[in-house]
């Protein structure tokens, strides 16, 4: 479109300046100078009154086109320069992204708590509630009610820690089973986690204090097969799907029949290795059907209900799981030991 040469001149000059601009602020002042309210193009358009009426629309259209073209060119150039400016800013403030980030490192959970939590979680999933009882116990709950004969060696000052007034430090968490049964009617389905005490001198495998998780179920139709299946389910959760449980006859005053239970060695899968002392199985705990005398002691009728119980040592499981070679490490609380359990 042939137009007014002055308009064309503004257009050409502005385009050249846009291309040569070095900063966004240059472009802004250019925009104000050419397209602003009192800019060159505006001023020119105001002076159109002197043109013949026939030409006015043509030049007006030309001016609008030029205005749009310049605005587009300006916007494009602004974008380019902004990108350029950001790039320069990045270069002037160089980051070392290999620097360590900022966060609070979580502290370690004690390995015994980890194992305890895991066990509690598994058994809660199997429908067990958690029951608690005192650590300082009476002879009755710790021994008599559990069918220990009066002259049982475990009652000696030799093996059990006593406190004044005839009480003692519980040697297992079984007294919690008695307290639980006395407090409610069947069905009972609980686990009893907690600290227990024996009068053992400390060495790599013995500690006067350790932790147990015991389980107890009493109901109308419970059998040893049910006990075995429950422990099998536990083993498969704790040690993996291929794990299995084996029962060996044993003796505890409070169960009849009694069984020790082993799990298939989780290192060698039963083939025999150094870990399981070539046996293929690892001893985990004791179990059995609640002795009829124990049921009678809490007012249950052994003809009406049967029950089973099991117990295992938390330290033993932690030792096997984390391959700790000295039980004393658990109670020394050296940070360099604990920090291995941050997760």
């Amino acid at each position: 479109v042939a137009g007014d040469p002055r308009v064309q001149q503004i257009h050409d000059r502005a385009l050249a300046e846009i291309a040569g601009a070095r900063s966004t602020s240059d472009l802004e002042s250019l925009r104000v100078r050419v397209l602003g309210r009192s800019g060159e193009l505006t001023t020119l358009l105001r002076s159109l009154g002197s043109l013949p009426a026939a030409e006015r629309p043509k030049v007006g259209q030309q001016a609008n086109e030029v205005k749009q073209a310049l605005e587009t060119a300006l916007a494009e150039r602004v974008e380019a320069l902004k990108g350029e400016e950001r790039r320069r800013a990045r270069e002037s403030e160089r980051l070392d992204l290999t620097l360590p980030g900022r966060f609070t490192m979580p502290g370690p959970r004690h390995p015994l708590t980890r194992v305890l939590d895991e066990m509690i979680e598994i058994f809660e999933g199997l429908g067990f509630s958690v029951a608690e009882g005192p650590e300082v116990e009476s002879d009755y709950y710790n021994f008599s009610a559990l069918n220990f004969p009066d002259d049982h060696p475990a009652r000696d000052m030799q093996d059990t820690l006593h406190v004044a007034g005839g009480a003692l430090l519980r040697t297992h968490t079984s007294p919690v089973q008695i307290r639980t049964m006395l407090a409610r009617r069947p069905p009972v389905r609980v686990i009893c986690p907690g600290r227990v005490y024996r009068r053992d001198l400390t060495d790599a495998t013995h500690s006067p204090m350790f932790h147990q998780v015991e389980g107890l179920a009493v109901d109308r139709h419970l059998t040893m097969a049910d006990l075995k299946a429950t422990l099998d389910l536990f083993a498969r959760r704790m040690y993996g799907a291929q794990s299995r449980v084996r029962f060996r006859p044993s003796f505890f005053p409070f169960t009849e029949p009694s069984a020790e239970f082993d799990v298939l060695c989780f290192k060698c899968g039963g083939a025999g290795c150094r870990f399981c002392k070539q046996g293929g199985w690892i001893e985990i705990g004791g179990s059995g059907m609640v002795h009829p005398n124990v049921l009678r002691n809490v007012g249950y009728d052994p003809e009406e209900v049967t029950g089973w119980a099991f117990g295992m040592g938390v330290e033993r499981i932690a030792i096997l799981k984390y391959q700790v070679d000295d039980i004393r490490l658990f109670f020394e609380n050296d940070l360099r030991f604990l920090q291995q359990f941050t997760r």
Partner: protein
Amino acid sequence: MKISYRWLREYVETDLPPSALADRLTNAGIPVEESVPVVEGLGGVVVGEIEAIERELGESRPGHLNRLCRVALPDRKFSVICGAPNVAPGLRTALAPPGATLPGGRTIAVTTIRGVVSEGMLCSEKDLGIGDDNDGILALPPDAPLGTDFVTYLGLDDTIFEIEITPNRPDALSIVGVAREIAAVTGAPFRFPQVAVKEAEPEAATLTSVEIADPDLCPRYAARVISGLTVKPSPPWLAQRLRAVGLRPINNVVDVTNYVLWELGQPLHAFDHATLAGGRIVVRRARPGEHLTTLDGRDRALTPDMLMICDAERPVAVGGVMGGADTEVRPGTTTVLLESACFNPASVRRTSRALGLSTDAAYRFERGSDVEGVIPALDRAALLMADLGGGTVARGVIDVYPAPRPHSRVALRLERVERVVGAAPPRAEVIRILQALGFAVDDSGPVLQVVVPSFRRDIVQEDDFVEEIVRIWGYDKIPLTLAQAGEVTPVTRPADLALAGQTGRALTAAGLAECVTYSFVDPARLKAMGWDDPARLVALLNPLSVERSIMRPSLVPGLLEVLATNVHRQSPDVQMFETGVTFAPHRDADGDRPAHEELWLGVALTGQRAPRAWHASRDRVDIYDAKGMAELTLAVAGAPGAETQPWSAGEEPGYLEPGRAARLLVDGQEVARFGEVAHRVREVFDLPAPVFVAEVSLTALAARPLLVPRYVPLPRFPAVQRDLALVVPDDVTVAQVEAAIQGMDIPWLVRVALFDVYSGSQVGTGKRSLAWSLTYQAPDRTLTDAEVNEAHARVVRELARRFRAEVRGA
């Protein structure tokens, strides 16, 4: 207990190899812990006789004369150099000819010593791996058959099982007892040793008598008299059997008592009859002041609760535990009074413990011996003794058994087995198992009537049979089935345990390490920490050490010990917590619980707050870190906004620094405390840097009603913030100012947050600058500036008046 495989096979006809037998026993409840061959690597050694000493070759070392011996076998002769002192013509011994192997991988070859050829070696016990004696070559009796393979001759092709018998099964503490188990498990026939004693005049009753003065401690005492004996070493087969099961051969009389003990499980004792005053036995409690020198040569002071075997005058043996030195059988003894008795288990155990004497006899008696096993063992030993010692057994048994025990009879319903186990063997198998184990079974009715033999005192009721049947049938046959749920009950977790889990996770997330310490602590350290009243503590009567003799009244002593351990192992920055029970004497509210126990969470901090890092400042922890951990715990436990109540100096717990300790109250109840550990306590624990602790009672928090979050609609109109900066005298606390603000009932004030604390030259001494951000917000409209300004001005005015506060930048 060590059990010989060959010995077992004398009483049970099984062809199972040792390893298979060990597995079967273990699975039946007789755990075989270890199974080892009697000797390993012994081969080609034979019985030979030294025919002559051909010549002396000089000393190999001082006192050891090497001699060249001619050793004869039936078909061949060997020239062997031997340095043993007991080499003599006519001696039969073990010859290892060239090619023979000895334990330890040694192969014998022809050697030349100083130009003389030696065709093999004569062996000592130690060379053969059957004993420790290395002083001379093994001396075999003159009737040892020449040329016989030595392993066959002594029965060394044997395996020894180390078995662990549970305390309820004293009947299995013998060869015969284990053989009976094998018979039940395998179905192989079991033979009980039958004994016919050859007796001769005179009547035993003319030689001795037995009186039981205390039948409560000795239900049965039997004796025989064997005379005309020659005390001498036992024959090799007997000595070897004892050695193989870990017993030391002594002489033919004592060895027979040990042999029968091992075989039948009945402890026996042989007295030299000539040394017994009056030649007779009285079984009674010790009298005050009596003493006895036991076989181990030690003088024992006796107490009246100990049962003694006495002669007419004095104690001669500790009943069921150990014999006396004065009446011991020794070379020259010709007449033996042989004791076979039954003692009260608890009494034997008490006496054995009191005297510090654990013997094979006491081990069996304290678990309960078979009252009917007394006579068979007595007869078996008398026969053997007479055979091996060339003596005669006097006619008759002296048997004092004042109150014979009846056999109990128990009814057994077969469905009970199924009910308890969830599976059961068929009726015929049940009956077979019971009979094989020695029970008499009357199966004429649907319910079995079972008679319990005297050696199974552990079987008293129906369920005891359930175990017997199933353990022999096989625990591996118990299926895996889950019972159908009867009544369904919800799974619950005690509130304090749930809190322990939640708060523990929060504290580890905050960077603290969890520790687990012993429940017992050192009284000296407690005393230094202010627990000086023993009536407030729970003490152990029989602690393992005094440092672990008091049940912890607080978690702090254990935590300080952990801090010290780590600080002294180059970890100066320690931030620990523990969740555990604390102990105090019984209170009425504790009911039948013997002590007062509470679950607490304890925190202890020392050193730098954060590990050294490019972005972290090197600040030491301070008391506000300890308070913060308590507040974090309370917040997680659903009890935020605790009131801080500082202790006035002297009122704080003894382990905290005066003026630097406070309690935290929720709804007026103390739930936590925190403070700086007193300097002198730090010295006791050898902690160089300041230590700050916090304790939170999870028991107290668990008793509060569970806080369930309740939704409040979100504000729909904007909030307006105004800062408030005051300079106040430094005895004015933040809590006082905030309480004053809250007390003014300022409209629309929804939040007061302290954001700056400053003291220093700019505000002048004795003063502090405090700055809060106050947020105003109305629920129903946008507040105008004028409204907010007016409310805020009231706050400023009121505080300035009340606390003599200067308002900064207002």
